């Protein structure tokens, strides 16, 4: 899957778990951190995002990337999923 396709399918998931407008999420820079100091995902919203990613892309991030390195930024997550989905 191309990174652009991944990003397009990831945005609604991010908007849902963060309770933000889709337009707002579309405007996020790819370098924005997902957790500390960025989008502000916490352990609960992060769990929801991982479950949504598993449903949407069929990728179990938690089982595959034990250190959750791919959750660094929107860009790292997009590229990670593009390589696997």
């Amino acid at each position, binding site marked *: 899957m191309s990174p652009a396709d991944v990003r397009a399918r990831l945005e609604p998931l991010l908007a849902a778990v963060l309770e933000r407008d889709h337009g707002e999420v579309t405007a996020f820079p790819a370098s924005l951190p997902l957790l*500390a100091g960025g989008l502000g995902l*916490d352990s609960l919203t992060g769990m929801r995002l991982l479950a949504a990613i598993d449903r949407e892309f069929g990728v179990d991030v*938690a089982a595959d990337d034990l250190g959750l390195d791919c959750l660094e930024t929107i860009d790292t997550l997009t590229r990670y999923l593009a390589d696997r989905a």
Partner: protein
Amino acid sequence: MRIAETLNVGLDAVAFVDEDPFERAEVAHLLPEVLVLAVADLESALAAGGRFAAGPPTGEGRRRAAMYRDEERRRQAEAGFAGGRAAFLRWCAMRLEIGPAAAAELDRLVELGERTHRLNSTATRHGRDEVARWLAAGGLVRARLADRFGDSGLIGMVAVDRSAAADWEVELLAVSCRVDGRGVPAALLRWTMDAARAAGAAGLRARYRPNGRNVRLALLLRQLGFERAGTEAETVVFRRSLTGPLPAYPEWLEIAGG
């Protein structure tokens, strides 16, 4: 099933007692894990022990029934509370007392290490000997939580290896799922960062071993600024620098002890 969910226990910990054989048959069919008894058989079942055998040995275990009642009142209060989760948590007036574990707490610490899954940083089961070793080495910190609804007792622990000069290392973080969602793991980690920094450590490491249910703790570590420093077999070693500002305590917790 709602009762089991409310109490956060498995269906195999539930007994259904009813004088109507039809009701009993229905429950037995739908929920095979539940022990189904006629009223007339209750007394002999209690006398026989089995599933009704004496509860856990610790003080927390004995007080569990009262704690479940407190938790039910907490739930009802939250359902009727206007103003969101954070406002509710502030209103609960939670006081988290964090400090070095004492020898008298050993039984409860062993129990906590064995019974936690979702909020346990490792898939490894740590036996009594290992917990006792941490205790003797002075590397065991525990947390007790109380709020306006009651005393939840000893609900969290951190075992720290302080033997390396540069970094302290969290070997185990375990928190009871009874207090899930109240920020206790984050507070315990922040407290440990402070203690490590005060002792001159440059960083705090934390060992995380997935058990299929504890990914929340990996997310929490990332959220608190930890990054993967290495991977040993199935264990990820996270590390966070202790230079600069540290993540804040959850705003609704009053932290006591030092």
